[in-house]
């Protein structure tokens, strides 16, 4: 009944909303392909006349920018990119694996109580700054500062409640009877979980993995306070360009931002159908 065709006014409203939504992304991408002279021009240049990939090159070969007469040479972002990939992939794998086991336990063996979601949500609730302080103290005592082990441990601990709860919401949707049927065929209950249940939650597993990856990949503060010389991630490196003494390398920074953003927008598109559930801890299913 509410459904009707689009009128001119509503179409116009949608169009304006679309412009507002996409303009910042457009600006970022456009900056990433601007030659240094256009970076901070006044008045600002919207679309570069001579688009270039020099900013992307500079990320991995800092000398490249010299050809454009830019003096200050930045640090290469190679370490940060590799660091982000390493930390996010490993932490996501561990978090989802542990989460899957916990989710089976919670979904199939225990009557969930009010305490469980409270604890899980509280884990996401703590301001990272508040937990970062104790982390730094304990990590500096145990030589975990500036190591991937330390960062991955934090990422696993922080995202584990999330992956557990997400996977539980997917497993809960499958009736227990399917496992019981397999058990009547002589399989053990544990075997039934892995041979019957797991293949059926493939989609949910993929979505959860993607969402946890997004959380890890986007994380800034923990990486920032733990990192010194050995450890770096894209968000850490990104924030560093602002403070570079040689002035802000707008284009290079934008290029790194585009690299950081692209996989998430792409991945987000694939799990679009599960986004609402992921963002609301399963409170909304579709």
């Amino acid at each position, binding site marked *: 009944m509410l459904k009707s065709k689009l009128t001119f006014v509503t179409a116009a409203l949608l169009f304006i909303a679309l412009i507002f939504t996409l303009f910042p992304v457009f600006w*970022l991408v456009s900056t990433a392909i601007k030659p240094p002279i256009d970076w901070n021009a006044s008045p600002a240049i919207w679309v570069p006349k001579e688009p270039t990939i020099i900013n992307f090159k500079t990320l991995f070969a800092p000398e490249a920018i010299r050809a454009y007469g830019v003096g200050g040479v930045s640090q290469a972002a190679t370490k940060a990119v590799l660091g982000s990939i390493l930390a996010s992939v490993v932490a996501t794998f561990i978090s989802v694996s542990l989460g899957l086991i916990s989710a089976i336990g919670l979904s199939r063996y225990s009557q969930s109580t009010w305490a469980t979601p409270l604890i899980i949500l509280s884990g996401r609730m703590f*301001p990272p700054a508040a937990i970062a302080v104790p982390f730094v103290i304990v990590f500096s005592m145990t030589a975990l500062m500036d190591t991937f082990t330390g960062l991955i441990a934090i990422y696993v601990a922080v995202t584990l409640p999330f992956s557990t709860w997400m996977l539980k919401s997917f497993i809960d949707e499958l009736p227990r009877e399917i496992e019981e049927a397999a058990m009547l065929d002589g399989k053990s209950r544990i075997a039934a979980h892995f041979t019957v249940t797991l293949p059926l939650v493939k989609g949910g597993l993929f979505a959860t993995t993607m969402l946890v990856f997004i959380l890890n990949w986007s994380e800034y503060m923990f990486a920032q306070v733990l990192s010194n010389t050995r450890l770096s991630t894209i968000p850490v490196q990104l924030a560093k360009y602002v403070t570079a003494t040689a002035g802000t390398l707008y284009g290079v920074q934008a290029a790194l931002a585009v690299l950081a953003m692209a996989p*998430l927008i792409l991945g987000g598109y694939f799990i679009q159908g599960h986004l609402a559930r992921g963002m609301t801890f399963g409170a909304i299913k579709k």
Partner: protein
Amino acid sequence: MSSLAASAPLDIQEPAEGQRPSLSSSEPNLRKPPGHQGRFFTVPGQIVSLIVLITPLLVALYMSFTDWSPTRSSLKAAAFVGLENYKELLIYDNRFLEAILRTLLLALICLSLEFVLGLSLAVLFLRNFRGKSFLFSAFLTPMMVLPVVVGYTFWMLFQSNGPINQILTLIGLGAIEWFKSPALAFSAVVITEVWHWTPLFFLILLSGLNNVPENPIRAAVILGASPRRLFWKVVFPMLRPVITVAFVIRAMEIIKIFDEVFLLTRGGPGSSTESISLYIYKLAFNDFQLAYGAAAAFIVLTASLIMVHFLLMPVREQLLDKGR
């Protein structure tokens, strides 16, 4: 056999003498999985949480009762000062209290705007038009962007010679120095945050609208409800649980806000856009007042816990019942 199987800790039961278990004999096993098995499943996760999360928290808790700073002495040598840090924070530290109030104000303003915008957009999406699925994906894009990238992008947009000022000049309003006045810097944070997270409200509310049952709407139309009254009297009340979820989730996220503000304003000018997370960060990692920072962290943690408890009350049913 049935009682034996039921009392076994793990029912990896080999049927005796190669007999298949009959339905009735394995019934108690199937219906009532023993609860203690479940603990084994959650043990690995709990160990990780315990070591990685709980240990630092305990150390920090102890530390918050000392006057330790890494620039002065070792933690062991630090003097025990009792509740001194807490007293200082809650009674004398105006910057801390202001950061708390500012964060709550930011939450209030942003959530209201995001709700109104998200709902409007979702209502537009009830219509059928071409390219709807493309637009849907497009409108969700901001949500997928890293907070750091959002902060950096809007920092560029709000530059004095940036595109926003360019447009403002063009329409005759004149350029604005966004980061020089507290009110404008705060507005910049609000705009950034609203851009970043309105899509979440849109997503949740649209899902809610699409799941509203059709017959009550039809019934209301037959009874003569105008579109406006239909929406406010019939559809909106049915949407209320979903709205609550959206608000709770966003409230929990926004009171943690750090990345966007850090890249956008660094809390400035002065401390006029400092969120609670940013203040704690500065205390601990710029001023090295770790003990004091830890105390602030614990106040925030406790307040968050209490707040999350009350925030979750209305959605408790949804998280529990629908999850089962």
